[in-house]
């Protein structure tokens, strides 16, 4: 009887040993997740999405939906072809889709976001290894791709609802409508903007702030973008360093480059600066992880943005600035390695 009882207890023990999970510590994990971070970004973009429909009508919604859907489809297809796990559930393709649409003019043709998504997802993201491995912000790379491939579609901005007529953006007005060198435009896009801009008048600052101005569908409303940005900062999804140094440097550079005081606020509120600073330049994958690196990234993007806007051929420089800094990110990280606690100088 006793020995039998012992046998069963021994058997139970052996069973227990096979059941116990043995791993390296730590044995608990936080609630943080990639999905949650991506979801937070989508939530933060929601006010601007709603605003875009209000300001530009249902066509904006159509473009956003097409862009998101095509980004997701391309992600699934390419992962299937590459025989990789399909990772639509990390929500990252949705964000890329929204941001591509945000960079389009409201009357862009339906295939424009499809082409953009294909480039962003297939070439920029998946060819380089998928989530976490892309070297440029996919949405901005797509914008650059579309701008150089179909400049007329990308630069024909419409006024806000209901007067859907081609108009110039505030930045274009400042660049071509006011300056003495209106004729110096080098590109078709600039030429289009320039011809529209000649003689146009700048909107009120209040309209610039709430977003009732011509521009790409997601970038016009400073107010709604800032609401989203505040959410991301409160949730600690983004670090304040890049946007603050980016916006601060842009402002200082514009002053140094001699932009008149009355136009400074138009520069800060106009174009893609707010969208870029809070939603693109804070993209984890393509920006430095080091604290000092983030400051340098912000300063670099600020200098480039101001230079392109004031001295360059385009009225807007946010996307190229961020893309250039994206490419410089590995180098920046290399030189901004944090000093280890107690590091002894050799």
């Amino acid at each position, binding site marked *: 009887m006793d020995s039998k009882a012992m046998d069963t207890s021994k058997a139970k*023990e052996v*069973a*227990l*040993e096979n*059941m*116990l*999970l*043995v*791993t*390296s*510590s*730590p*044995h*608990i*994990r*936080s609630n*943080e*997740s*990639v999905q*949650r*971070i991506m979801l937070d970004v989508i939530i933060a973009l929601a006010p601007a999405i709603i605003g875009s429909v209000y300001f530009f009508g249902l066509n904006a919604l159509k473009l956003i939906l097409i862009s998101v859907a095509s980004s997701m489809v391309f992600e699934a297809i390419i992962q299937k072809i590459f025989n990789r796990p399909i990772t639509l559930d*990390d929500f990252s393709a949705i964000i890329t889709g929204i941001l591509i649409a945000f960079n389009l003019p409201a009357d862009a043709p339906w295939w424009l976001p499809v082409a953009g998504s294909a480039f962003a997802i297939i070439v920029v993201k998946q060819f380089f290894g*998928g*989530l*976490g*491995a892309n070297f440029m912000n996919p949405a901005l790379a797509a914008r650059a791709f579309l701008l150089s491939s179909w400049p007329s579609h990308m630069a024909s901005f419409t006024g806000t609802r209901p007067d859907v007529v081609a108009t110039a953006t505030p930045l274009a007005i400042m660049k071509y409508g006011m300056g003495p060198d209106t004729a110096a435009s080098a590109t078709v896009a600039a030429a289009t903007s320039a011809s529209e801009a000649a003689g146009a008048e700048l909107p009120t600052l209040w309209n610039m702030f709430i977003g009732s101005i011509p521009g790409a569908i997601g970038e016009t409303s400073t107010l709604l973008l800032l609401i989203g940005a505040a959410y991301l900062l409160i949730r600690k999804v983004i*670090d304040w360093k890049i946007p603050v140094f980016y916006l601060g440097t842009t402002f200082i550079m514009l002053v140094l480059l001699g932009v008149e005081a009355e136009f400074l606020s138009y520069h800060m509120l106009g174009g893609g600066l707010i969208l870029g600073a809070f939603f693109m330049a804070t993209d*984890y*994958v393509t920006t430095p*992880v*080091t*604290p000092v690196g983030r400051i340098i990234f912000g300063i670099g993007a600020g200098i480039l943005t101001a230079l392109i806007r004031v001295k360059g051929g385009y009225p807007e420089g946010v996307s190229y600035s961020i893309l250039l800094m994206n490419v410089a990110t590995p180098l920046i990280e290399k030189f901004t*390695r*944090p*000093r*280890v*606690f*107690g*590091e*002894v100088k050799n």
Partner: protein
Amino acid sequence: MKLENLTFKGGVNVPHYKELTENLPIEKAKEPAIVKIPLHQHTGAPCEAMVKVGDSVKVGQKIGESEAFVSAPVHSSVSGTVKEIMDMPIPTGLTVKCVVIESDGKNELHELVRPKGKLEDLSSEEIIEIIREAGITGMGGASFPTHVKLSPPSDKKIDTVLINGAECEPYLTADHRVMAEEAEKVIFGLKAIMKALGVDRGVIGVEKNKPDAIKALKEASQGEENISIATLKVKYPQGDEKRLINAILGRVVPSGGLPMDVGAVVSNASTTRAIAEAILEGKPLIERVTTVTGNGIKNPKNLLVKIGTPFKDLIEECGGFTEDSPGKIIAGGPMMGISQFSIDVPIIKGSGGILVLSKEEAKPEPIQPCIRCGKCLEVCPVKLQPLYISSYTLKKNFDKAEEYNALDCVECGACSYICPAKRPLVESIRLAKREILAKRKAK
């Protein structure tokens, strides 16, 4: 010197899960029928057995010793007969020689277990010798022999003794209860360390989530001009000794250095209590307070346990498992503890807790690609870049891992804890450290 609400840079807020046991008084565990006392449960040289099978031993009798300076003797925690001396797995994951003693239940004290006299009458050397003879080692985890810590080279000027009462590991409340219930002994132990080192400043650092311990220590130290209590913000890993020194003294221990390089000696609260008992009662380190806790255990408790008691006995005493089979059994806390293959392993000097996680809690989460969010840099108390050390390690590029200062990692696990992609960061850095050290040794 400001002593309220101190902290360090970096770190992470981990839910502390201490509510299961923080208000439960220390209970004396049931007498174990057998104890398995490892001859090597400290950092340093293993002990040689001083007894053989069949010998009868008494409580507090020395049963293992080493000639080496960096080592600590071990003592029997029961009276009875030596049954076996053989290799067995212990909670550190190693297999070491253990002395298995069957208790006769009488708990007869060995004749050497007697008070060592008044602190005022003991010299510095005598105090250090008592501590060495009592086999006292750091009870917070690393199990470094305490007498070695108290014998710094003459060129290191020590000016402060810090008592580590942070107990930042979630779930564990052993140090907490010791400080709350036996504050006088902790203060006495601190005074003994101060005397041994000839130091006239002692500070006890306690995280603010232990108000009863802070109150008890303040009361017990009233009138002691040289001793103060510092309250610390609740943040992991506050109990890492270099973080503690930084928070309280504002000093930075150099990379690869020791606390004595900045004039400090740090001793854990339970260790300090053991020092007091070694002087007051002549009792070697044969028992300690261990928290048996977790959602996988029926009645979590703080138990005063004899060294060598098998985990199994304590799990039974706490009502057993809540499920047929638990998910994980961990020696220590969830952040740095070691998960166990078996519950036959014994309690050792460094065992602050037994944590039983349920199946659901232990379930590993799927690993996703790194999105470079940089949270691992933010929480790293040493300011490393865990994502890079980890990715180089996973590519077996250990030279690069070394270049990124892998050896400075204190293995606190904050990076893996925070990682949204659930990547094995500290796990791989640990591997890198081992490879780098092995390579250095081979040279």
